[in-house]
């Protein structure tokens, strides 16, 4: 597979910086073999990234690709740690981002606060100007006022500015003129224009996205520049690629301009990795279940396409409307607390023991029972984790379950542990149901990719509950997200509002509109250094029944010659997603979009010969399974010693450095060519 001219040491490196750990995935270009490293995240995340690369035994000069997912932008938004920014808006609309849509996610708690806008009122300045709904300038930009505002910005020493004018999605002229005046007076300020960032109708959503972009621009821009220069100093010669929420990457050249696209970077990586793992095992339909210590991320991939949403936010009320891979996060993880409420019902989460004090079995002072403790009590988790680096105290776990659950409910500790996990699994199954069945997907057509530290312990039980026939556990469940960063192309999404009844659409005008979007996409890819022959454009039309509010997206061929197919596809999609369609009702186009992709050279992952050799357990421990009336002495396998083609027959446990896999009775786990473990779950 390896082509000539590639050094044996050449590697692709992907790095996922999380809140606690920095995960590194290293793929040897010649052998296709992957190995991983995990180091603590550092105060300046760049140090952690470099430490991780070193820990992985890689020299920067040997990297032929470096791709990076990071929660930097998310954290900056949550903590409000970003340099001061100013918003300039149309007179009369200073408070659009503070008024928001005015609604709340918590409906009943009058003492729960809403997050504050990213830019304070004192930093929101106004100018006279107005564009109407049709794009006509009804009030020209007051140039004197604009200069005054720019001068104030100069006096305040602010370097990043959001320019958000009413109806600018229809006509960007006033926003652009404002930008030029600002550039005259404050040449080193970076401007984010709502008509560039997200040229779509609805002021709050557009302004909010633009404001998020403006406050993140200096954070992301300086981080990207520093990271790239450290990389280049060390001998890495290619682009530093940054994973964005849409599931593609950007180079550092575009990252500052579209900084808010990085806001869901960390979450997207897991979903992409999950798709890859499933496809490598031969499944184009997959549900990703990434279960960590405090929460679980669920994603869905249908025929190779991850679901995408435009309704995304870091804090409720402040949407960031760039297309983002749809991930449903629920408060259920290994550390979620099991508790009895006032009416004696057994609850699970969303509170979590977190990493401090952590589950009771960690022996760091936690006394409340968690899912992790339940797994320890049942013997599903060994008392030694991470190859012996962490030891778990079964006595403490037992005590926590006894006092917190078993005692109050009058059951044995073992039954209490089973009960705790049953509730936790049911909550996760409900989340999967919301993303799958509710959207018209039948779980029986999917494979469940179970990863994150805790996913492989729960995967089989969840699959059985949901009638999912196959569970896949990737080779390194705890660092799978990092893998996601390795696998993607450069991608930009460009959109245009196109509100028109399908019956009134001029195909020529539609084609012209798509071409304009492609020109914009091409321009962005060129800025990224993508050559024309590696550019791919995909066209999409969002449609809805005339009178409806929400639209569904369908792909159309290029060039557009007729809308018949797209309309038929829309009816079908509505039928699938919402249980019904209205074939006789008029259909309206809402928005056009083009996904502009710059193809990167794909890595080749090693495939291993399947061998016919029996797997041999390394030890046994007493484990209680849901299906059996009592704990039994169960074979325990070391994953590192399981080779492609080997089979493990349940009941069995498979331990590995960063996770533990539960193979229920009657289930056979098989190691496939890419070392993923495949469990086929007999349907109940």
């Amino acid at each position: 597979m390896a082509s000539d001219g590639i050094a044996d040491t050449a590697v692709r490196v992907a790095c996922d910086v999380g809140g606690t750990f920095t995960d590194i995935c290293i793929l040897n270009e010649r052998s296709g073999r992957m190995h991983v490293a995990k180091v603590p995240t550092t105060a300046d995340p760049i140090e952690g990234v470099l430490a991780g690369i070193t820990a992985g035994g890689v020299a920067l000069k040997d990297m032929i690709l470096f791709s990076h997912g990071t929660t930097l932008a998310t954290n900056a938004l949550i903590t409000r740690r970003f340099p001061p920014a100013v918003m300039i808006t149309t007179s009369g609309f200073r408070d659009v981002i503070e008024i928001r849509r005015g609604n709340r996610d918590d409906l009943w708690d009058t003492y729960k606060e809403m997050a504050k806008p990213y830019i304070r009122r004192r930093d929101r300045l106004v100018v006279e100007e107005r564009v109407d709904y049709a794009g006509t300038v009804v009030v020209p930009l007051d140039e004197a006022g604009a200069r005054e505002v720019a001068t104030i910005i100069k006096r305040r020493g602010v370097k990043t500015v959001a320019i958000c004018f009413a109806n600018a999605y229809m006509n960007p002229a006033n926003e652009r003129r404002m930008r030029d005046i600002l550039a005259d007076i404050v040449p080193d300020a970076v401007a984010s224009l709502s008509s560039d960032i997200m040229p779509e109708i609805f002021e709050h959503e557009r302004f909010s996205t633009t404001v998020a972009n403006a406050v993140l621009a200096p954070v992301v821009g300086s981080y990207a520049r520093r990271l790239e220069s450290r990389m280049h100093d060390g001998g890495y010669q290619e682009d530093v690629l940054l994973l964005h929420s849409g599931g593609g990457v950007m180079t550092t050249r575009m990252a500052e301009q579209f900084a808010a696209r990085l806001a869901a970077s960390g979450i997207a990586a897991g979903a992409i990795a999950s798709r890859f793992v499933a496809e490598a095992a031969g499944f184009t339909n997959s549900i990703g279940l990434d279960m960590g210590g405090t929460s679980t991320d669920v994603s869905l991939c249908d025929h190779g396409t991850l679901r995408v949403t435009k309704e995304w936010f870091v804090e409720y009320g402040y949407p960031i409307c760039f297309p983002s891979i749809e991930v449903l996060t629920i408060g259920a993880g290994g550390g979620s607390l099991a508790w009895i409420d006032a009416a004696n019902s057994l609850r699970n989460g969303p509170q979590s023991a977190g990493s401090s004090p952590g589950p009771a079995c960690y022996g760091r002072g936690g006394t409340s029972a968690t899912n992790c403790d339940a797994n320890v009590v049942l013997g599903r988790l060994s008392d030694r984790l991470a190859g012996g680096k962490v030891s778990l105290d079964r006595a403490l776990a037992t005590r926590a379950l006894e006092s917190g659950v078993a005692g109050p409910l009058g059951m044995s500790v073992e039954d209490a542990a089973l009960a705790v996990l049953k509730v936790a699994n049911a909550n996760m199954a409900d989340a999967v149901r919301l993303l799958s069945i509710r959207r018209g997907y039948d779980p029986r057509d999917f494979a469940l990719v179970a990863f994150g530290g805790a996913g492989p312990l729960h995967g089989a039980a969840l699959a059985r509950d949901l009638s999912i026939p196959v569970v896949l556990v990737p080779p390194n469940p705890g660092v799978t997200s990092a893998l996601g960063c390795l696998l993607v192309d450069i991608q930009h999404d460009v959109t245009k509002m196109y509100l028109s009844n399908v019956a009134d659409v001029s195909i020529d005008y539609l084609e012209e509109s798509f071409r304009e979007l492609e020109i914009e996409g091409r321009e962005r890819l060129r800025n990224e250094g993508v050559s024309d022959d590696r550019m791919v454009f995909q066209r999409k039309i969002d449609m809805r029944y005339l009178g409806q509010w929400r639209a569904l997206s369908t792909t159309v061929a290029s060039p557009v010659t007729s809308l018949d197919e797209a309309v038929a596809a829309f009816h079908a999609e509505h039928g699938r997603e919402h249980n019904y369609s209205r074939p006789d009702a008029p259909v309206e186009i809402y928005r056009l979009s083009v996904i502009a992709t710059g193809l990167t050279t794909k890595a080749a992952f090693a495939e291993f010969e399947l061998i016919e050799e029996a797997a041999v357990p390394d030890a046994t421990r007493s484990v209680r399974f849901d299906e059996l009336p009592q704990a039994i002495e169960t074979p325990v396998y070391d994953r590192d010693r399981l080779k492609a083609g080997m089979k493990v027959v349940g009941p069995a446990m498979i331990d590995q450095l960063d996770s533990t896999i539960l193979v229920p009775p009657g289930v056979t786990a098989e190691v496939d060519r890419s070392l993923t473990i495949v469990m086929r779950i007999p349907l109940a």
Partner: protein
Amino acid sequence: MASDDTNLDPVTFEVLKNAYVNIVDQMAEQIFRTCYSFVIYSRDFSSALCDAQGDTIMQGSGDIAAHVGTLHYTCKAVIDHFRGDVHPGDVFVINDVYLGGTHFNDTRIVRPIFYRDELLGFAQANGHWADVGGAVPGSFNVNAIDHMGEGLRITPTRVWSKGVCLEDVCRLIASNTRAPADIIGDMQAQAEATRVAEQEICRLVEKYGLPTIKRSFGAVQDYVEVLTRQRIAALPDGVWETEDYIDVDPGSGEGLVPIRVQMTIRGDTVHYDLSRSHPKTISSFLNACFGGSFAAVVAGTKMQFPEIPLNSGFYRVVTMDLGPEGSVVNATWPTPVAGFCSGPFEKIMNSIFELWAEIMPERAMACTFNLDYLLIGGRDGRQSGHKYFMWYDWMVGGWGARNGRDGWAATGPVFGVQLGTQPFEGQERLAPVLTRQNELRVDSGGPGEFRGGMGVEKGVVMTQIDRTVVSYCCDRERSVTWGLWGGLPSIPHGVWVNPGQPNERYLGSLFSNVGLETGDLVTRPSAGGGGLGDPLERDAALVCEDVIDGYVSIERAAKDYGVVVKEIDADLAQYEVDHQATLAQRTYIRANRLAWLAQDAEVIAAKYRAGELDMLDLIRTHGVIVHWGSGELLANTTRQFRAMLMRRTVPYWGKSVAAVGKDASVTLQTA
């Protein structure tokens, strides 16, 4: 209680309870994604799973507050009307306010849930249809004298029979509205949402067995009952009482209309007695039938216990007595009640907040702005043929200040905080109405040691209109959003046309079909929240921060808070407190403020007419209410308003909120 039921283990119970939450939320998600009514799209809808008796097993976690406590009534009405004649595949529709509905727009689709041939319960999807006919677009007819003028009353009616849509019936309903195609679309969207619930329940039956599912329906209600009783039992017994006001009964001259709420906690129950409220219905549509009133009682109480799920178990613990029929809170056929949400509902909710502030001072909250609803309808001069347009609008506003915290700014009404505003860019496409301003209104937050949340000013210009009128449904232009524990009121609601121009008109807070011309500017504020605690106790540094952000003007900082703020450099947002002047100003206000509230109201009104005093001086300093357009004194109203201030505000002056909160607990212990 779950664990008491030997046949339903606590784990299965918890799993099923969560599954029911999941099901009603799935219904909500489906409606939100497929609806036609922009009102439903703004989240004015609710969903419920009911048992075979019609009692609620679970209500949507995102439901509008004004619908809670009513879905079991409408389900029971359907059961009563079709007893013995309910079949798999049937779907019913009902919006009857005299059978437990809220107002006619809130139309409920009810589907029986069958497993094989056994009726297990009902799924209900309720949504605010944009129009249900009647005399005015949007079916909010201020001038209705009976329900015929409001819109189509739908008594329990079958719309699907054994899986077949009864198109003639649907057409009849849709044809009596102004947007028949949308109504058909919404009916289908709601019916499909209830189908989701039926499918999910059947799946659970297959998995857990019929007996378990049927038992769990009751167990989930018992669970909520137990939780609620425990919380109430932990509170001391006692009787508390307060009153709030609707602005006026247009048929009875000026004077505030009282809504009186007495709350009794005894043992593990809480009972509300509204029987001493204004004894007759008023001659506007700001009346409530029992459904609307009970919704307010349930929602107001639920806000004290945010973590308790809502179902009929709650209604076994929280009870009410509305007194004789025919009162403003217990209207009967054929009284119009579409405005219940602006009238009694708001007043009952805010009264309940005030009562609970005595019991749980740590969760105290002053009054919140009033729900409003403005409609401009006419012909769109931008289009050939001047097609009909309707521009509906409602505001978000300020919530009451709280113990230790300012109120929320620009938030949905107590009617339901998920009721989002509409984007003006969307509105401008659909109507010749250009938004000129959509901004927080300076000084709208009621002053207090903790400030009420900010209200919003929205002003719109008619660009090219033809035969166009404006109507408005609100309240509290006179019964101004009040402060608590020494806090001051915010600002009055009310619509102005061309303010400050020669053709200025003040239209008030309740009117319909007033003509407009191209070029007219129609503007109105939403009130801020009332203040909590004596404003002279507010930290001067916080007042200065409010001035920097433009929430409070320099002028009102001095008048309301006694804080003198100096501008250093406005461009750099630099201001500072003049501490010495502040001390003097606060001393001056303390010495005089009680006397200001007793000054001759007619003299004060005359100064308003002469431009020497402004609206906020009258309300906050003198407790005087006038007709804001003409300046004519409203003598009865002023007397009542001043009495209200003497009760809610004056006794607490000179005390910090921390001290008042402690006193409240003390009062409680001796109650």
